[in-house]
């Protein structure tokens, strides 16, 4: 979860930085005479939520803590509530046990995992790759999200296909697009890109590509080389 620097409460200096940006108009160096060149913008991760969380969130987190016992502290590194949505940030070593409790405990009963969505934060050192699992409990009609991270130089996350078989293709897709290796997946191959494709297209260091287009004498550069408002 991310949040703007200005709304981060005072005293929470330990928040990790997800991304930084400089300037305002996408130009660097001397051409920028706008006076905005020194502007620095920082994207912080969202702060941990404080008790009481409200609604059913307290009870659900308590149930999970009860089930995990002494593992809860190391397993769930942060509980975030943003836009009325509960997100549990889970350490990858404990992902399987957290998922199993979420699915099996009668008070939690998240029967479905609605996929895996990767997000690449190159500046979030040591946790560049985030994987977001939206969970759905049909029994209790609730939703929450589980998020795990892994570093770029060790992109391994345990596969949850043994718990949620429907996540098979979703994990293949996240592998295909981000290069996250889901350990224990029954057949982790590319799914959208050709089998011999090089690179993982949704990563931020992978260019969009494209060619300049000429129209009525003017040349329009490809989208990823156009000026970007920061």
């Amino acid at each position, binding site marked *: *979860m*991310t*949040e*703007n620097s200005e*709304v981060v409460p005072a005293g929470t200096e330990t928040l990790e930085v*997800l*991304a930084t*940006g400089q300037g305002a108009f996408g130009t660097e160096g001397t051409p920028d005479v706008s006076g905005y060149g020194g502007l620095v*913008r920082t*994207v*912080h991760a*969202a702060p941990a939520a404080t008790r009481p969380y409200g609604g059913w969130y307290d009870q659900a987190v308590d149930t999970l803590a009860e089930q995990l016992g002494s593992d809860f502290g190391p397993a769930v590194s942060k509980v975030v509530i*943003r*836009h009325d*949505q509960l997100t549990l940030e889970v350490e990858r070593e404990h992902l399987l046990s957290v998922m199993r409790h979420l699915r099996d405990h009668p008070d939690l009963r998240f*029967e*479905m*995992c*609605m*996929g895996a*969505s*990767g*997000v*690449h934060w190159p500046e979030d050192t040591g946790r560049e790759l985030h994987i*977001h699992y*939206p969970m*759905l409990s*049909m029994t209790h*009609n609730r*939703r929450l*999200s589980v998020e795990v991270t892994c570093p770029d130089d060790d992109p391994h996350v345990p596969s949850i296909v043994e718990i*949620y*078989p*429907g*996540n*098979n*293709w*979703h994990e293949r*897709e996240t592998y295909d*697009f981000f290069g996250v290796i889901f350990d224990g997946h029954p057949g982790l191959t*590319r*799914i*959208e*890109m*050709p089998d011999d494709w090089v690179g993982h*297209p*949704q990563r931020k260091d992978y260019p*969009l590509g494209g060619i300049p287009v000429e129209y009525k004498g003017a040349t329009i550069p490809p*989208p*990823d080389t*156009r000026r*970007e*408002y*920061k």
Partner: protein
Amino acid sequence: MSDDVIYDTAEEADSYDTTEGKVFTVSGGDWDQVEGDEGIAQRIVVNMGPQHPSTHGVLRLILELDGETVTQARSGIGYLHTGIEKNLEFRTWTQGVTYVTRMDYLAPIFNETAYCLGVEKLLGITDQIPERATVIRVMLMELNRISSHLVYLATGGMELGALTAMTFGFREREHVLDVLESVTGLRMNHAFIRPGGLAQDIPEDAPQQITDLLALLRKRLPDTANLLVNNSIWMSRTEGVGYLDLTGCMALGMTGPVLRSTGYPWDLRKMQPYCGYETYEFDVPTQTSCDAYGRFLIRLEEMQQSMRIVEQCLERLRPGPVMVEDKKIAWPAQLAIGSDGIGNSLEHIRHIMGQSMEALIHHFKLVTEGFRVPAGQAYVAIEAPRGELGVHVVSDGGTRPYRVHFRDPSFNNLQAVPAMSEGGQVADVVAAVASIDPVMGGVDR
């Protein structure tokens, strides 16, 4: 050298050795050579698609056969991957609508609405969307659900040989698309629903057109129903075919008509309402047969329920704005038709070019730079014709999406092809796939 060693390699079945033995690639006309060869194991793998009229688009099915029985089925996808999610990261939030509408191209209004609900959640303006905009969104979604289900009937019917169902389905769908064209300007790929509301208001005669359309559909949909519901050929092709029970649906994350064909009335419009669905009167049809026939009946009934919702929308249409009041988000210009085609309204051009420098700057900034969305992430799900359409929107506080991921129901539901078709006949694979109603544009994105 003697003549008898000369042979034409073009007529020879290609073969190569693998760890599991010799593999032949047979493409027709060369079957005799393989059949006569000694010591060949009886494993036949048939590649069906991606270019095949009955695979519902560019779906590739890899079937292992024992006679007519499918022993293993796998689906290969990716033939329609266009990198929409990647492209989104290089456009403004508003331009994103133009991309997402092309994902599941039979349900464009749903893609747009789901995306906009996600962006609006991050902007924190969910409560500020004008009533009229929300009612029109619901109305267009339900019209779109009808047109999408009609394509299911048409293509599904065609794939099973019911060609009249195809002509009926596409004929009725065209009437729905006529209305969508009249409202949004395009038959498909509308880009009409925008973060904050709608691109513009609906034309004055749209309610009348929709009323006429509903009258026509009420007259004609029973034709299609009568053609198939008790048709013994249709029933024998679909009953007990593509079986997937509740346990299977839960394990594979199935939603939509496939889940409802197990008797579980799970519909996000009822269970987790959005866009004010809790205030509309409609039923969630279910069947308990868990098969392709049940899904067919469900979709037939869903079209009737959608018509009920559209009627209620028509009653609720009150004059009012269709965009949020916040001028930092609302699109500044309205479209109008001039002598040289459609474009920004002359009144607006006159204002920004002749009267107000500030309005010109505002227009320029909002159109080229776009608005900023506070950093954060959200997951929003709506009930699309094929099941749960989930959108994971991530912003880094900039004018462009940092990451947008669509959890498309077709993508997820296609995983059920092996469970639905293994152990059945080859011909039933087609019926099973048709009952999932996958749209490859949504699967591959």
